[in-house]
């Protein structure tokens, strides 16, 4: 499922995000909200999340999570997922997308700046994973224990991998490594990399059953470019 979120006001934006999560069967619970932020939980993760939108006139997003809400929008053991997003452009397009195993908030500013805040999982016991990638602000990824990790692609967008007739792009698994370089998982549930040039920053594109999210940079442990994200079956999945 995918939803264009209501950006007529911050409260409308928060309402439409919570409504979209509810329609996806994610049981969102709002713990706190002001004009500047909303703190919520949902059933795709045991963590507590804070989405902030400031300044309002440019719809600039930032995103964090923690282990609990201690009041006033403060989170225990806060981790930064998406931050330092440019404030000189208007982030006017917001979407929420979901398939059975992953979901994401995709935000666009014009044709050239994108950010995707995403939840997925890895392993047979569906360990939650939260991350963001963007061609603008700073982004990071975290494993099920809240430890910062690196996402990696076996393919980095500089060359085209395609069928002999040139018909369709390939997808590749999302790989996770610890900061020490050790492999954490060789594939994540609900997301893949689209083997397409990383400079073809996608934002949000719909192809048949699938949705393509943004490409962009990630900052831990090094800054490097990732190819576009692919959410298989997100266009047609229903809870």
């Amino acid at each position, binding site marked *: 499922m995918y939803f264009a979120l209501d950006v007529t006001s911050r409260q409308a934006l928060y309402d439409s995000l919570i409504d979209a999560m509810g329609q996806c069967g994610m049981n969102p619970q709002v713990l706190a909200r002001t004009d500047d932020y909303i703190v919520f939980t949902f059933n795709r993760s045991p963590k507590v999340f804070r989405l902030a939108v400031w300044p309002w006139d440019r719809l600039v997003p930032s995103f964090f999570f923690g282990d609990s809400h201690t009041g006033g929008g403060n989170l225990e053991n806060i981790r930064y997922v998406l931050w330092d997003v440019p404030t000189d452009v208007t982030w006017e397009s917001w979407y929420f997308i979901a398939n059975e195993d992953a979901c994401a908030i995709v935000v666009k500013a014009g044709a050239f700046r994108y950010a995707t805040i995403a939840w997925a999982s890895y392993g047979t016991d569906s360990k939650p994973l939260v991350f963001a990638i963007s061609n603008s602000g700073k982004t990071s990824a975290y494993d099920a224990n809240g430890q910062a990790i*690196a996402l*990696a*692609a*076996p*393919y*980095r*967008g*500089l*060359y*085209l*991998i*395609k*069928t*002999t007739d*040139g*018909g*369709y*792009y*390939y*997808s*590749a*698994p999302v*790989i996770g*490594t610890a*900061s*020490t*370089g*050790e*492999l954490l998982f*060789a594939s994540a549930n609900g997301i*893949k990399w*689209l*083997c*397409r040039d990383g400079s*073809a920053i996608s934002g949000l*594109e719909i*192809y*048949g*059953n*699938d949705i*393509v999210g943004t490409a962009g940079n990630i900052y831990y*442990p*090094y800054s*490097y470019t990732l190819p576009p994200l*692919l959410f298989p079956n997100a266009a047609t999945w229903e809870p």
Partner: protein
Amino acid sequence: MADVRIGNVVMARSPGALSIDGYQLVTSAFREGEYLRIVGGKIVTSPCDGGGVGCIIHVAMAADILPASLPSSPQSLSIVLEETQIPVS
């Protein structure tokens, strides 16, 4: 479907291209002073048969994400590429 399966560990300390079983693994984004660790390297099948860019698998990410000191324990990785619904533009 291209099935890229990994057997031996290959390490290099300089930029360049490695050729394994006749297929080129491009390491153009390799940074000086970092290890490139390709976990595996036997390409069982390939998505194309005519050479050119369609046969090149870019593995520069390994150099980008790995620290200068390699972890001591061996790793293995099986990468399966799948065709999508997204047409080549």
